């Protein structure tokens, strides 16, 4: 008795799976936004006058980058309620993705900032701008442009990592797929299809990243 493929199950469940895709995209975009904020703030703080702030950022990056995401999300999910912060699975997932992606974003963006010629910063100071203004108006955009491919690559990773958020049953594609699978026992068909749905999501994001790059980072350089 061989296994007979039956994709009709997947076909019937397609609307549910597509909603799962929407869930994944929403989770990923919210996570990226948070990661971006943490990344930029972290890079600025890493260069702050206050030594404790610099140490905090370094420690944060070390811990997050050297521990598994699954453990991090469980930690947030089970530890936060102990200090009275009860969050739903989706909020927990967004925070976990944002914190995790943020730590990587700090390291990537920092590389971009270091690639900026120091004459740019000096020109800003000579014009009477303050340190924060120099970072915000002069350094940040060229720095982001320099590392844009690495950063967007990391954000694709973040999107794929969101599948782990099924562990706390956040609403996203993998958890939706798990439910369909346990209802139908069509494991291969479901995960085969989900693979391509993830591929589609990644391609969609890449199109978006390219459009953003075209809009913001297309100024000419020599």
């Amino acid at each position, binding site marked *: 008795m061989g296994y007979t493929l039956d994709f009709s199950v997947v076909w019937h469940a397609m609307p549910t799976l597509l909603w799962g895709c929407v869930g994944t995209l929403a989770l990923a975009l919210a996570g990226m936004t948070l990661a971006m904020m943490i990344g930029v703030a972290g890079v600025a703080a890493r260069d702050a006058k206050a030594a404790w702030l610099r140490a905090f950022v370094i420690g944060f990056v070390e811990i997050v980058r050297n521990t598994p995401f699954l453990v991090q999300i469980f930690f947030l999910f089970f530890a936060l309620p102990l200090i009275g912060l009860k969050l739903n699975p989706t909020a927990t997932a967004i925070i976990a993705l944002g914190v995790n992606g943020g730590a990587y974003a700090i390291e990537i963006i920092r590389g971009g900032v270091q690639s900026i010629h120091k*004459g740019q910063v*000096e020109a*800003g*100071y*000579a*014009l009477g701008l303050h340190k924060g203004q120099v970072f915000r108006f*002069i350094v940040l955009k*060229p720095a982001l442009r320099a590392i844009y491919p690495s950063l967007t690559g990391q954000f694709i990773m973040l999107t794929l990592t969101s599948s782990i958020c099924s562990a706390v049953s956040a609403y996203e594609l993998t958890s939706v797929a798990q439910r369909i699978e346990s209802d139908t026992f069509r494991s291969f068909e479901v995960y085969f299809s989900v693979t391509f749905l993830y591929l589609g999501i990644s391609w969609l994001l890449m199109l978006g990243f390219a459009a953003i790059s075209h809009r913001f980072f297309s*100024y000419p350089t*020599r």
Partner: protein
Amino acid sequence: MQDQILIEMKGVQKWYGGYQALRNVDLTVRKGEKIVVCGPSGSGKSTLIRCINRLEAIQQGSIVVNGHRLDDSIKAIDVVRQDVGMVFQSFNLFPHMTVLQNCTLAPIRARRVSKTEAEAIARKYLERVRIGDQAEKYPAQLSGGQQQRVAIARALCMQPKVMLFDEPTSALDPEMVKEVLDTMIGLANDGMTMICVTHEMGFARQVADRVIFMAEGQIIEEGAPDAFFRNPKHARTRQFLGEILAHH
């Protein structure tokens, strides 16, 4: 008013670690004076002018700019930088901004000038450096000479009392040196106080009130260009002039 002192450096000493870059430098610059600083590389001439707007901190001595004593306070540094414009060897235009945005950023953010007013000022100075028609372009779309003229306009937009030039023509292709020097001569003729680190001795002859020669972090000799070039007093100066004038 012609005698008003704009910059006064007294006993300035600066070290980079164990290396002494400036040794007991005294320099007084009056309003409207044009000063050319020359000397071999590593003589401290760039360091000298970079101390005036506090891109470099000094360890000993005092610097007073337009009556404001430069110390470590952000307030003092702010006040001094408002009065001092700077043009760099490598232009340092902001690549992600148009020429116009390069010129309006600091007036808007540091001087709190309105955007409309900042743009009007910027267009005026871009006209003055004869580059008004390039305002919407990005720096990378301009030649080196044009970029340096934009950098001059950008500094002028802050309406400084003194302009510092740090080897403004050294990074330029030879055919573009003249357009930048002409712009600087125009500025000098309008009465701008200028300190210029340069090896362009023709420029020094034409506009400088005083030429300063530095070596090993010290001011070795200074004088009016005529006397300075015709009979330099120090052997070190003669040697330097011999070297740079030989290939001119």
